[in-house]
Structures are given as structure tokens and as C-alpha cells.
């Protein structure tokens, strides 16, 4: 059980929610399962951890259906059912301490995990460039510029068009399918190192139901447990 601290509307349908819970601290790129109580929802929803500080969890989400709609109605001091953190996180794919230069690409709600990642990378002294893509109104510009050495914002276009892929930096991407495909294509052409964070429909979020599996070069993998972070080359549909 977790307690809502605040749940602010940033722009149409997009909310920033802070929750207090003393469950285990997350690693960058992990997510939690959230279920607003009392709305007849059966399953919890996977939501990325944008930020974590001393038991205060920050989530960024967009209202797209029943669950996120119920979430948007929560007010400060309401309860929310929460379990996690889940998933491997970026650092299990590639140790973050080893990265000297990183380029983070976030599109839509895929910007959320990039915030926590940028913060962690900055702590290890890496140079962090962040590219954010929005369809209309940009959000959280100030917050992201605080954790970036360079911040590039794209509105209404393709965020990947602004990114020069080359060997050397490590690239991270999270966002809608077309963005991920474009990033993978450019990374492949440049021979660049790219780590992606994927989405899939989930039931358990724990690795038990096999509802979220994807095909990879190493066989079937669970996005919730073996991912959500993968090297792009491994993921069927991105890698080849």
C-alpha cells in the first residue's frame, strides 16, 4: 500500500504523481505495478519510476484508459495499491558506472525512465545529453535540464531526426514503436550501442504469467522480468 502525496495535471491528460512508500528502492529503468483501489480494476498497471528520493516515488503518466483514468482521480492522502520495483533496469544490461558519455532519447511517456537514468548517470560523472520528443506541448523542461548537460526538445517531429548516432556514447531509448524502430535503424547504420526500454501488456509483472513475452535472439523473454531494458540487437523486430 502506498499513499498519494500529490497528483498534478501537467497538461491535457498527463499527470505527475508523487507517492510515498517504503518498499525497496528502485534502480534506473525499473517500474512498479500500480492499481487504484475501488474502481473494479482487476489488474495493476505497469508504470515506470521517473524519480525516487527517500521513499518518495515520482510517476509520469498519460490517461489512455480505465486504469490511468482512475489514477488521475486520486487525490493527496488517497491509497494506491503498489508493488515492485520490477524489471532489470538499464544497469543490468550495461553497468552504468562504465559509461562516460550517454545520449538519452525519450518520446511521449517514454521520457519518464530517462529522468531517473540521467540522474544516476550524472552522479557517476558521465556526460548526459537528453533528447525529448513531444507531439504537442513540451513538459518538464526545467526538471530535465537540471539533470542534463545538454537538452534537446523536439515538438511535433521525429525526435530521432535530431540525434546523431556514432560509436562511443551509449544510447538509451524509450518511446512509441516508430521511434524505437527509427532509433534501432540509425544505431545499426552507425554501429552505435543502443539500449531500449520496451512496453508490453502485462498481468503479473513478476515473470509468472508469460503474458508479456517477446521474441529475442536468445529465445522468448519476459519484458517484465528479463526486461524491460534490452540491447536493441537482441529484440526481434528491432535488431535485424
Amino acid at each position, binding site marked *: 500500500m502506498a499513499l498519494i502525496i500529490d497528483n498534478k495535471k501537467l497538461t491535457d491528460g498527463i499527470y505527475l504523481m508523487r507517492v510515498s512508500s517504503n518498499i525497496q528502492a528502485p534502480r534506473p529503468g525499473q517500474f512498479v505495478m500500480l492499481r487504484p483501489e475501488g474502481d473494479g480494476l482487476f489488474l495493476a498497471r505497469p508504470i515506470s519510476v521517473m524519480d525516487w528520493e527517500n521513499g518518495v516515488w515520482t510517476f509520469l503518466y498519460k490517461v489512455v484508459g480505465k486504469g490511468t483514468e482512475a489514477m488521475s482521480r486520486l487525490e493527496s492522502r488517497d491509497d494506491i495499491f503498489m508493488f515492485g520495483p520490477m524489471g532489470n533496469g538499464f544497469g543490468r544490461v550495461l553497468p552504468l558506472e562504465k559509461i562516460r558519455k550517454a545520449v538519452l532519447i525519450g518520446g511521449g511517456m517514454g521520457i519518464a525512465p530517462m529522468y531517473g537514468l540521467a540522474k544516476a548517470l550524472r552522479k557517476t560523472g558521465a556526460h548526459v545529453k537528453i533528447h525529448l520528443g513531444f507531439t504537442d506541448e513540451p513538459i518538464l523542461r526545467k526538471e530535465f535540464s537540471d539533470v542534463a548537460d545538454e537538452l534537446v526538445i523536439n515538438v511535433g517531429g521525429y525526435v530521432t531526426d535530431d540525434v546523431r548516432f556514432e560509436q562511443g556514447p551509449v544510447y538509451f531509448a524509450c518511446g512509441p514503436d516508430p521511434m524505437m524502430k527509427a532509433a534501432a535503424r540509425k544505431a545499426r547504420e552507425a554501429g552505435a550501442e543502443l539500449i531500449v526500454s520496451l512496453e508490453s501488456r502485462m498481468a*503479473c509483472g513478476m515473470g509468472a504469467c508469460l503474458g508479456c*513475452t517477446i521474441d529475442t535472439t536468445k529465445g522468448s523473454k519476459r519484458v517484465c522480468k528479463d526486461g524491460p531494458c534490452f540491447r536493441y540487437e537482441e529484440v526481434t523486430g528491432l535488431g535485424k
Partner: protein
Amino acid sequence: MKNPVIAASGTFGFGIEYEEYFDPTILGGVSSKGLTLRPSRGNAGIRVWETPMGMLNSIGLENPGVEHFVSHEALEMRKLGCAVIANLGGHSEEDYVTGAEMLNGCDIDILELNISCPNVKSGGMAFGTDPDQAADITSKVKAVTRHPLMVKLTPNAGDIVAVARACEEAGADGLSLINTVLGMAIDVRAEKAVFNNVYAGLSGPAIMPIALRMVHQVAHAVSIPVSGLGGISTAEDAIAFIMAGASTVQVGATTFRDPMAMVNIIKGLEEYAEKKSLKNIQDIRGIV
């Protein structure tokens, strides 16, 4: 078993996924993901879909195959410290018989014969909807297995009591019911079925009244133990199944909703037994 609560097949992996949340040793038992003779990748496309107080799934028995299970997962499951149940599915009679023979090579407590999976194209549920076919497969597996045999029934049979009786006569040592109820979802915007297989299996609290009715009917018609499942999410639900005649209960989709659900159910059963001064929770079995 130290208590009647079993993690249902396909909802608890091979027993270690929830270890961060609780020690599986406290469970009465764990039923493995449905195994098939050969490794299977399962179904493509969307596999899980939320419904009002339930969910549809079309996993399609993704599993490492019986051989891998015998040499790997079965050994891990033995360490769980609770009853180990291997759930065996199949596409043909030979699949089931060969699979059962191979499972003789491992240390499990119960073989659960899944003749009720709605998510595989051939075989699967087809064996569980017809009493004659169910009896045939039960007797053939019974003839080769060295493990106690529990047959898992489908609610999608025309007459589940007839199937249950047929399995009992064919030598089943126990029955478990119900597997998922055949359902469907349509993506109205895309104007097509959500699942590649069109139909999928419904589970969760939404199916509990159906499951309870069927357990009641079957438990009163056979004399072998019945393991009841379908939508159980609280200790009270579990008690209802025991009152309807179930010896054990299994918890499936509810674990996805709340990883601690089984822990709370076990605690709730103990508290109930204490409050009612029952020596054993089995004292209320079949009282309704």
C-alpha cells in the same frame, strides 16, 4: 500438505517468481506451468486482457518442455518445501502418455493432467469436453504414471459431472476444476478480435460463481478428492469452495492482482478454523 492452498498452474511459474514477496514453503503446494512434450513458444499477439473483475489469457502453454522440466525446473521445485504438482498438457494421446512416462523420472507429488487448456489449437481442451475421450486418456496415463493422478477439468464441457465420473471410473486419484472459461474480446476500434486465436480463457473473480457451482456438483457426484479453483481471492472464497466439497483450493489470477493474496488466504483459513474451534479445516468440507 500443511494447508489446502495451492498456487494454480500457469499463474506461479515454477514457484520461484514470487520469492521476493513470500517464502513458497508456506503454501500447501505449487502446480507448474502447463508442460508439453516438446518446448513451446506459446501464442503470438496479445496474450492477456483485463475484463470486469477478471482477465482473459491466451498464453498457449509456453513452456520449456517435459525433458527440460525433469532435469531443471522439477529439481528447483522440489526445494520449495511444499507439494510439487506437474501440470501436463498435450496435443495428442501419445503426447500425454509419453510426457507422463518421462515425468516418472522426476520427484513430484502429483501429476495434474490438463485436458482443459482452451488456448492450444489441437488437443488440449478437446480431451476434456467429451466423457469418453477424457476416460480414455485418463486410463492410458494412469497405466503408465507412478505418480498420483489428478485430472483438471474444463467448465466448457457440456456435462462436467459426466466427465468427472468418467475420469473417476478410469482411475483418476483426484480432480481439479475449473480451468478457464472460454471467452472473447473484440477491439471495437480496430474492428477485430483482440486475440490471434479469437477465443481465450477467462479467469478471476468473475468466474467464481460458475466454478463454485461446478465444484459443488462434481464433489457430490464422485468420491475422489476435488481441488477447487476459479476466482478465489479471499479466505472466505476458499471456505466457500471447501463447504461446496473441495479438499484443496487453488489460487490463480488473483496472485497477479495481489502477490500476497495466498499468504492472506492461508492466514484467514487458520483464523477461521480457530474461531470456529475446528481441529481441521476439512471438518467443514461439503457441509453445503
